[in-house]
């Protein structure tokens, strides 16, 4: 057992030391204790066996600081459409937002976490004073203990965020060139009948390892609707751990679209609780994994009420020595009758050296349910390749078309057209042959 807490105690002192209400300090210490009790996950930790978390444990991170370069990130983000965007650079929300954002609609508030903690911490007391259920999520607990900044989105009863909101997490090397870490929180609250679309993007620009440790919490009241796009393009040495906890109330709908297009290690835990009758979630994902990258997606959907629906499909394209892990559990609680759930994982292997593990799984404690799951691992079809080539299309282009065809299903599910176009371009740019041709 390592002594995980040691490296972060000074961070905790700093996070808990600033002027803040005693209840928050207590909550931070409780979360820190939860992290310390679990320790760094290792290859023997349940749920983390295939995640090389030692890459995090063994790196001496310093707290993220101001980036050395002034070159910025304009134009590098995938999400071009957000009329409002809030940028979190190296762990800090940049002041003022961006662009010529029109005023938010009545009932919608978007703020930096640091600002809320400074000016009206009591408004977050209900969510921040209760330590999140961090079983199996040591890094989520660590973020709860240490995060000093992040983004808070609150949409009041029957209010609508009328245009998508972009949240861009951008990281770049510090002056020191040393590895940096940022612990952040994203808090989303949609009251009854409220709706919002969030495009949350991670963009890594630096060369040194940058670890983003994000804790996302979303609560959807009755009849609320959240579309949560998650675009991930960490840098070559970028590390991302994200724990997302979502509570979906009665007749509310949560939709997630996760795209992983880079980074040394991306570990995402998404836990959705369908807590009200007729709650609905759709979880979609596409990962393009190559080089020595690892993408690790763990989802748990808890059907805690009657008549919940889950539609889950994750796809991955694996090239070179890439590794993808999918672990998707649907947990149907006693009494959650009329649950309708499907979980599928489909994977395309382009290389002999790539590695994929897929584990769609159900735990069912109700008797009147419809549950389907499946996992598939395949290669490009030789018949399809020959068909395309027999029409004059070169082999590299034919492969590209088939890989694109495999992935495009997930992009087509994206409702925002400019985002769909950007994702299409990103998918093309991630093709193995595209990389070779550019070299």
């Amino acid at each position, binding site marked *: 057992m390592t002594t995980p807490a040691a490296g972060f105690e000074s961070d905790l002192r700093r996070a808990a030391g600033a002027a803040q209400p005693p209840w928050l300090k207590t909550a931070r210490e409780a979360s820190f204790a939860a992290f310390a009790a679990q320790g760094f996950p290792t290859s023997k930790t349940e749920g983390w066996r295939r995640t090389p978390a030692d890459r995090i444990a063994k790196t001496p991170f310093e707290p993220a600081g101001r980036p050395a370069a002034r070159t910025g990130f304009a134009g590098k983000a995938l999400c071009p459409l957000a009329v409002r965007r809030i940028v979190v650079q190296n762990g800090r929300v940049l002041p003022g937002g961006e662009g010529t954002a029109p005023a938010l609609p009545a009932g919608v508030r978007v703020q930096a976490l640091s600002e809320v903690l400074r000016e009206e911490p009591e408004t977050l007391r209900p969510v921040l004073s209760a330590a999140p259920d961090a079983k199996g999520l040591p890094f989520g607990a660590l973020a709860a203990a240490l995060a000093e900044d992040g983004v808070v989105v609150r949409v009041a009863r029957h209010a609508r965020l009328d245009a998508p909101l972009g949240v861009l997490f951008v990281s770049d090397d510090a002056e020191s060139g040393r590895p940096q870490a940022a612990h952040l929180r994203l808090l989303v609250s949609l009251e009854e009948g409220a709706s919002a679309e969030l495009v949350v993007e991670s963009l890594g620009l630096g060369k040194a390892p940058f670890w983003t440790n994000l804790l996302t919490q979303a609560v959807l009241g009755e009849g609320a609707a959240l579309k949560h796009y998650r675009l991930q393009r960490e840098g070559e040495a970028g590390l991302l751990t994200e724990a997302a906890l979502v509570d979906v109330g009665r007749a509310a709908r949560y939709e997630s679209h996760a795209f992983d297009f880079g980074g040394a290690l991306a570990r995402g835990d998404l836990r959705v609780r369908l807590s009200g009758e007729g709650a609905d979630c759709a979880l979609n994902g596409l990962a393009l994994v190559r080089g020595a990258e690892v993408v690790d997606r763990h989802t748990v959907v808890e059907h805690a009420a009657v008549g919940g629906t889950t539609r889950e499909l994750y796809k991955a394209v694996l090239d070179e020595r890439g590794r993808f892990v999918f672990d998707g559990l649907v947990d149907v609680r006693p009494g959650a009758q009329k649950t309708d759930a499907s979980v599928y994982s489909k994977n395309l292997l382009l290389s002999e050296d790539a590695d994929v593990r897929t584990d769609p799984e159900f735990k069912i404690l109700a008797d009147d349910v419809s549950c389907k799951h499946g996992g598939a691992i395949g290669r490009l079809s030789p018949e399809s390749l*020959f068909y395309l080539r027999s029409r004059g299309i070169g082999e590299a282009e034919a492969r590209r078309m088939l890989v694109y065809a495999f992935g495009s299903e997930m992009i087509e599910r994206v409702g925002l057209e400019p985002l769909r176009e950007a994702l299409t371009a990103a998918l093309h740019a991630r093709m193995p042959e595209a990389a070779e041709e550019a070299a």
Partner: protein
Amino acid sequence: MSNIVLKIDNLHAKVGDKPILKGLSLEVREGEVHAIMGPNGSGKSTLSYVLAGRDGYQVTEGGASYLGKDLLAMAPEDRAREGVFLAFQYPVEIPGVSNKYFLKAAYNAVAKHRGAPELDAGPFLKFVKEKAKFVEMDPAFLNRSVNEGFSGGEKKRNEVLQMAVLEPRLAILDETDSGLDIDALKIVASGINKMRGPGRAFVVVTHYQRLLDYVVPDFVHVLSGGRIVKSGGKELALQLEKEGYGWIGAEKAGA
């Protein structure tokens, strides 16, 4: 006499350890339509695939040249770019690739090779819609995934559409009539007939004579046991229809 487009000389080919073609020879000239008929297992599809360059077939003896070049040495895409087209017996479904994108990619790959201008999406769509009329295809099929969920007849029409778009010099039609009702057969045959001309040769591979009622061949060959055992004019097809393959004395293929 017109140019020889395809010359197959004593072709032997096997699949795995099993010899299928055992000394097949054939000469096809510009403007000609040759029908190759034969019972199941005689090697008809193997011949089509070997000429188009599909993996899994090993040529052990003999060869084939196309306009004087060694056809079998070319990659499948190069054969297509040079003007060889195979209409598949079982066209492949490719979910996620739209038919028009596929047709445009194919058209532009071939155009580039021929030094002709490539077409952007707009002009190409106009071009391909004209071609779709050839086979009476609803333009809605252009927006669907390649062959996905198409009926048998729609798939075959799509093959003829691809042929019309790529304008090959040698078209090999592998059992293009299979799975078609009579109306679809007439449409497909009419599409093929519109493509006939002095610069283009056809090899029509078929089990039954009925396609040949509509696409009238110049020559008919009987393939049996991996070799052509009899050649004649179009009347040979009628005789085969009436009397079957038995009278040829053809050895039953290794089927």
